[in-house]
């Protein structure tokens, strides 16, 4: 069947099978920044945005997103660079495999809450598992990023 979607601002049409999951559709069509870590919607590695909201693409049937808007890490390279720099500066890029999903969740967090508390950061990112870093450094990085951004905004 045909799937019509807008991905990263561009209209696309893909040939899909009715039982295909979105993570596979995306990866098969070159959006390889989207990774997969489980197949049960548990690890957060496959996080993308559907109509601006963070969702897990490994448990979302492609057929269900007909006509909707998808954003992958490829579509937010500017933000990914900005946020990623803080992760890398803190040394919590590590294997990097969960990073694109984590960054998609950070972007969504920012959208939902201005100047979030530690608890809010942990709540919004709880679904993004990471086995390398122990999370502590990621929290440090996210706080520095948000503080940096907040300070910049208040200067303007």
């Amino acid at each position: 069947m045909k799937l019509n979607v807008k991905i990263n601002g561009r209209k696309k049409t893909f040939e899909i099978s009715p039982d295909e999951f979105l993570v596979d559709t995306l990866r098969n069509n070159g959006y390889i920044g989207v990774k997969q870590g489980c197949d049960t919607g548990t690890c957060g590695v496959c996080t993308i945005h559907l109509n601006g909201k963070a969702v897990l693409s490994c448990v979302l049937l492609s057929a269900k997103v007909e006509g909707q808007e998808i954003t992958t890490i490829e579509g937010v390279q500017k933000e990914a660079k900005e946020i990623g720099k803080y992760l890398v500066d803190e040394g919590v890029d590590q294997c990097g495999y969960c990073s694109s999903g984590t960054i998609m969740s950070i972007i969504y967090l920012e959208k939902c809450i201005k100047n979030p508390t530690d608890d809010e950061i942990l709540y919004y990112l709880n679904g993004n598992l990471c086995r390398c870093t122990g999370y502590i450094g990621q929290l440090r990085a996210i706080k520095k990023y948000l503080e940096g951004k907040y300070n910049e905004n208040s200067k303007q």
Partner: protein
Amino acid sequence: MKTVSSSISKLDGMSLVMGKAAYTDDFVPKDTLVIKVLRSPHAFAKIKNIDTSIAEKVPGVECIFTYKNVIRKPYTRAGQCYPELAPYDKFLLDNYVRHVGDDVAIIAAVDEKTATKAMKLIKVDYQILTPVLDLKQAENSTLVHPEKDIFTQLQVGFKRNKNIVAQIDFELGDTQRALKESEIILKRTYNTQAQAQAMMETQRSYTYLDNYGRLVVVTSTQIPFHVRRILSNALDIPMSKIRVIKPRIGGGFGAKQTAHSEFYPALVTLKTGKASKIVYSRREVFRGTTSRHAMTFDITIGADRDGKINAIDMNGLWDTGAYGEHAYTTLGAAGKKVLTLYNKVKACRFGGKALYTNHVPGGALRGFGVTQGTFALESAINELSKELNIDPIKLREENMIKKGETTPLYNMTTKDAGKEPMYMDSCLLEYCVSRGKELILWDEKYPMKKITPTKVRGVGMAISQQGSGIPKVDMASATLKLNDDGFFTLLLGATDIGTGSDTILSQIAAEALDIDINKINIYTADTDLTPFDSGAYASSTTYTTGNAIIDAAEKMKNLIIKYGAKYFNTVEKNIVFSNSNIIKKDSNEIISLEDFSKKITYNMLFSQLTATGSFVPKKAAPPYMAGFAEVDVDIETGKVEIVNFIGVVDCGMAINPKLAKVQVEGGIVQGIGFALYEEAKYTKEGKLINDTFMEYKIPTRKDIGNIYVELADGYDETGPYGAKSIGEVVINTVAPAITDAIYNACGVRVRDLPATPEKILLQLQLDGSLSCIND
């Protein structure tokens, strides 16, 4: 020092976090065949008949393999140097299946859907056998390996007809006598569970034939050179016909120190000539690969009332599951890297047996046996401190190994160590303990305090060591090539599995060559192009490969001086290489490395300068750690929450303190999962219950409390610029420190990990431990 001891960021970090193509599955060629593996639903069965005729007719199916049409040749999947200590007990496919998830058939098709459809149409008639699931009965049970053609390369105590994979026994002094002469004897049994590595990227590989007809294997592995050798052995093709390439790796933790996913596409590509790939599902990882060996340890400690520990006797049973990969080596590590902590004993003894069962095989996981042994011994030491009524920190200070000390055990348990004592001149364990004590405010907090009427808070601690590579076994090498604009290519067989070793090793090269790190281009792990490296395991990369780089850099500097002398038409003694310049001393003439490299390439001498260095560790260079836990126990539910975990680590001189610290933080969190809830559980038929992330829970960012880490200011003269290892030592103290904190909080001693709320609550209710809290 310019570049080492500096917290630079990972050189490839930005590309990884921004989602650039980096990992195995990001590079798979178009129209690659997709492979599915049919796996056993039974813990133990004989395949009476297998019928693939219908499956083969599914349009799009390329080929199907069963035990009937692959070669039968025993091999081991364990990533170890040759000859391996692991038994050759695996076949590509066999007519016996020995654990749920064991491989039965390999299906290659045009896409995943077709392969899956065909897989479901394969008819297998199993004769179900009684599985061996009770470790203690394993020696007297049905044989997990009834076939007679399996064997070991080395003497490891392998007894197929008793289900014994390996046995280790060593003793220092007369343990029996030292125990007899002790005033207090403590006897305990501890159990640790099978833990999953749970790296985020599952195992995966793809293969194709290159233009010369050679098999190219692109794979997410920690051991590219071992994979080449293992494949050559298993598939019975010359090693020279195989090339293994490792892209970026999405975590390993030991899971990828065993070859798994490589065999299937290799078989398919060799048969069809077409590219093929397999990506493991998460369930497949749980069922079809390895986990940390479950173990049970009986410990007897003899001590005097004043706190002098006289003797330690450890006896371990090791559940190695259906195949013996990493059984002997993890078992050995559990003894030698644990007992050496207490060097003042009169005697100690270690006995261990690794047994086959029909569980999913045990394998390598960060800590590699030392985690299990440390839990047992450090728990026993904590229990002893209660018996003696001596503060556990004081008990350790009196008995543990300190700077400049040694024990003959280091010689006994290190290959070709000779008789010269190995002094631990760089050991800062004493500092780690005292600094951790200070940081957690031990004297204020030990042993416990009531927080609310239903919540109690306790502290606990433990110490640990690991190794830095494996002396006289695991070798690494490095090649440096001077390019025609004064920059270097650094070729390494080492594998960065996310630790940042590519960056750390570039730092070492830059330091050794006294040049800017931007002048180093690193390329790692391609068996055709890079020199040998045993792989990313045994906490070896920084220490072993780092030393190989220094060796290569020394040779390169000598070459530059030699060719510099030719260039200036003088003697070598008259040349110095410093700060990227070649200087003729007597006349002070200078040529920059950029100009020099251009000249010798294009205008004169016409020489390519390359230098290769190699290194194998000569002696034990253990890193040390002291870990301190502060936990809250809810006495109504038994739930444990981590309030603080403090880790102080002696890793020698940290080449990159930032990346080293993250190793510690990550290791502690993995240890928290091990201590409190992670466990591969089986039904009584031997089926894994929790084989997805839905059921098998690893810590999330809300489960970990406050973690604080410091590195001691250490220096080991055998390490590259003083560095020792860090990757594994960091997980070992967590479980014993946490379980002692639980005991100090509420009086419940958990000797069987993980310390789940159920176990704690049950004991609270059973033994009335609450009375001490409630009065």
